[in-house]
């Protein structure tokens, strides 16, 4: 069983460690979180069913629980005050003021470090959803499964995270008098 667990789970260590690093913003804590995740996963392995998503979302869900447990918060904690459910998500977008949109977009190539700083400033729940989407390539359903929240909550958190990042980096560009370059093919 140990060997089967290692064959199934160890290939995903980079993903688990990366998410642990993003959530904790600390390399030392990330390593501890990753180790604790694998130990807990191994202990629960006899109950694990290889469902359609594979072991990676399962491991990430355990990591998510480990991280928030360490902060004294239950996994099924009520969503953040500004989370919305699926039914209200569309209403929220509809009611948001229509910001004049320019065809010019941020050239993210210039903002790698600033982008990471901006991500680190997000709430952990938003950070987690954002990185599960961007780096781990999980679907909304998989993210909801990992985070233990509703689909609408995932959509809401991604929407807000992207908004915050966009605003943060446009402010940065304005402060530094950098132009937002047109995104050219």
């Amino acid at each position, binding site marked *: 069983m*140990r060997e089967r667990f290692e064959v199934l789970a160890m290939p995903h260590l*980079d993903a688990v*460690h990366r998410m642990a690093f993003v959530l904790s913003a600390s390399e030392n804590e990330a390593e501890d979180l990753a*180790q604790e995740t*694998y130990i807990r996963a191994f202990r629960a392995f006899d109950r694990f069913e290889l469902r359609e998503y594979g*072991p990676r979302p399962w491991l990430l869900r355990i990591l998510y629980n480990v991280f928030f447990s360490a902060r004294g918060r239950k996994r099924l904690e009520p969503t953040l005050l500004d989370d919305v459910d699926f039914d209200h998500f569309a209403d929220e977008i*509809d009611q948001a003021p229509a910001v004049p949109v320019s065809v010019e977009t941020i050239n993210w190539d210039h903002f790698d470090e600033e982008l990471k700083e901006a991500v680190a400033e997000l709430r952990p729940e938003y950070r987690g959803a954002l990185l599960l989407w961007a780096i781990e390539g999980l679907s909304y359903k998989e993210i909801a499964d990992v985070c233990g929240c509703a689909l609408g909550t995932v959509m809401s958190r991604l929407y807000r995270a992207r908004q915050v990042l966009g605003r943060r980096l446009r402010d940065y560009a304005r402060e530094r008098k950098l132009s937002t370059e047109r*995104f050219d093919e």
Partner: protein
Amino acid sequence: MNCIGFRKYIGAFADGELDVALNLEALEHLNMCPTCAARVEEITVLREALQRGYADVKASSALRARITSALQREPIAGEPRGQRRSRRRMIYRLFLPVAVAASLFVAFVAWPRANGPHTDVALATLAADARFQHRTCVALRGMRHHDASLPRDPDGMARVLGRELGMVVAIPDLTADGFALIGADRCGIRGRVGAHALYRAEATKLNLSLFTVHRPARLASFRFGSTADEVYTSGDGELQTVVWNHGAETYVACAPLSAEALRRLVDEVRLSAADGRVRPVLAAVSGFDLAARLFRRDSALSLQN
């Protein structure tokens, strides 16, 4: 759908989360609205920037060793260590001959299909992602989104793309099947950048995509059967996608053809080392697993056949 209506779907569209009907409505809107198209593109670029930013965050070998060592010290769930050892010995004495016979039977029945529903789901997801990417490229950039900096000849395209992406790329000649190569660019599936070759059949106005992408993580754990090429076909009524395997790689082709026609086209292109009709030009890529491979049809050999 207008801009106000599209606003609530921008993220879900960019993430490939809309159903077919909404997806088509969104594509129709994007074809006419560069502003919304720019917003969708911004989300894609943000994702690529985040991937770039965290690409070098990896588990150290020390951490791997630490975890392996910690797992070795963990008891197997449900039993004290001493009892587990004696019970294992008893199990082996009593059941080993039966277990061996059963495993041989299961292996025979399962061969050549070594993976079950989980592989199907992973392949289905990859196929759906490929269809989405095909539609997105067509809607946002048009079929002729050939990168102007690339050479116009297939060999040149393959050489430059390959050098840039760290892989050997070949662009297959599909003119015998009525498809002309109209461009190549750097595109990917779900944000994983790779090579995208675009073809068009003027007689039928059909567009075809061939993708070379890094193998999605969800396929990393699966080992495909190796006795025969397993071809997986799926469609949504409009686009067919074929995902097929040869050796250690997985390949993706997407077009609005019937499943039978696309599979026939794929069969013509697939590696066939036995009869020498096609020759692989693409070599293994260090550091990445391929999700698609592009072959060159050896025209000289074809004429001889």
